[in-house]
């Protein structure tokens, strides 16, 4: 069930020019800046390090735009009623959608890596390909689940779109996608620790460049479990509220 939802969501979003652009353009620009800077001698880490950071930025953007407004978007299409009315638990239905959306973000991972290799001559040698694949999978899953939490909590507020827009850049910064965590002020660290991109990017960088990938992977799983529980509860609250306040459809 989850798989089918994921599959069709992917099928739809992969055809959406907007989502693909979101996943591609910004990450490529940021990747280019960082890699050009590195080549100019201003940065010391390997090119792959920056390419991976930019890739996760792309997944995050896709999740923010695709999942933050997931419920409003389904409602706009008139899909909320049929989806809620189906006997499948609504949380699984939504999860299929948010996981599908996060998967579309893999475009940006592929694109930044390819770009880094073609344009900047980055070495795409992976220290441990198996761990890298596992880290990528877990990163996508955890971001999809974080998307579920966002999608279900944002509908509880007006202007969920504004919240989504506000979240994109700060999260890039806080989670260490652009600059290492150690350069950020201490008060941001607790925030970083509860956000899956932090662990996702650490896991991917460690698996690619050599280092301890398993610890961030475990933290990514812990965060995912938290998101899952929170998501199940939030979606339940949202469904009951929607049935009470008659907000499943547009009038």
């Amino acid at each position, binding site marked *: 069930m989850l798989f*089918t939802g994921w599959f069709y969501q992917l099928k739809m979003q992969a055809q959406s020019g907007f989502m693909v652009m979101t996943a591609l353009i910004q990450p490529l620009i940021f990747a280019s800046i960082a890699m050009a800077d590195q080549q100019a001698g201003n940065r010391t880490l390997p090119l792959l390090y920056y390419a991976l950071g930019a890739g996760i930025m792309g997944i995050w953007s896709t999740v923010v735009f695709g999942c933050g407004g997931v419920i409003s978007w389904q409602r706009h299409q*008139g899909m909320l*009623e049929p989806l809620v009315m189906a*006997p*499948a638990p609504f949380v699984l239905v939504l999860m299929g959608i948010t996981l599908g959306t996060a998967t579309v973000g893999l475009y940006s991972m592929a694109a930044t890596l390819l770009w880094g290799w073609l344009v900047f001559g980055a070495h795409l040698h992976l220290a441990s390909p198996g761990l890298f694949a596992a880290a990528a999978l877990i990163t996508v899953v955890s971001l999809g689940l974080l998307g579920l939490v966002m999608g279900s909590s944002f509908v509880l507020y007006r202007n969920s779109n504004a919240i989504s827009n506000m979240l994109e850049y700060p999260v890039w910064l806080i989670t260490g996608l652009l600059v290492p965590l150690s350069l950020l002020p201490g008060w941001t660290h607790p925030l970083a620790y509860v956000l899956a991109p932090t662990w996702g990017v650490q896991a991917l960088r460690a698996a690619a460049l050599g280092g301890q990938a398993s610890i961030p992977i475990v933290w990514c799983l812990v965060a995912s479990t938290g998101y899952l529980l929170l998501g199940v509860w939030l979606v339940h609250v949202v469904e009951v509220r929607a049935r009470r306040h008659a907000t499943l459809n547009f009038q």
Partner: protein
Amino acid sequence: MPQTANFSSGPAIEIDGLRRTYRTTTGTLRRRRLEVEAVRGISLEVGRGELFGLLGPNGAGKTTTIRVLCTLLLPTSGVVRVLGHDVVQDAREVRRRIGYVFGGDRGLYDRLSALDNLRYFAELYALEPSHLRSRIDEVLEMVGLKGRERERVEGFSRGMRQRLHLARGLLHDPPVLFFDEPTIGVDPVGAREVRQLIGDLAKAGKTVLLTTHYMFEADSLCDRIAVISRGRIVAEGTPKDLKSAASDRTVVEVEAYGVDEAILARMRALEGVESVAMEVRDQAQLLLVQARQADQLTARLLQLLEGIRVERIAAREPTLEDAYVALVTQE
């Protein structure tokens, strides 16, 4: 209340004292809270295998009632059960057993093909994968979309979308079906097919609750009808019952040119006249005059219409539509 729940026999649909209020706000600067009492105490039972019609003017509360039955809205108060399952406590059980087809062209994934739309919902309804394809073929055949299933819904006409809605509602072969204006936007031939399909479903033992604004549709299809007006049931019975309630009425249809408000007012004041409705079609005005115990109504009307071009005037037997008009204009 387990002692009253009756899953295997008993009525298919039970509504007891249903009320539903909407809270909205109006105004941008000075927000005011507004309460709309959409349904104000409806009680009604639909037997298994019955084809039941809900009629009523716009905003009467039909869709609201159906949405409560479909677990999309919580009742403000009252008890609602489908096949013995409470729509609040056992929403899951209700959802498994119902299909909902609503009018309109939204509610489908445009970027997917008709087939993918159905496959996705087949999964949400936990259809057996082994006969999923044959079931999808079956419903596509039923709604007349066979051969178009691989096209994206994006390119579907309104009527085709409506058919796809139908197909989706039937996919899991639910014992209870809700149709909210199912022929809206469907061409006349297609609408006839849809009516045929609904009739066949009822013959096959499905319970059907239908809303429509087409009186002939209700008359030809429904075993029983309830007329709702302003959130309350104002009449209930077989189409024949409802018509006979209007049988003491005379209905006169007039086609004329140049009838003004003053004449209409004088017609309404005529003894025995209950209602006068006017519709303008092209240049002509069509008047529908309903009267009770009205002798010589035609002659008296002609007197009022002196000096006006009257193309046609004829008295006829009251139809279900007349009975309906009489009911909903009473208040």
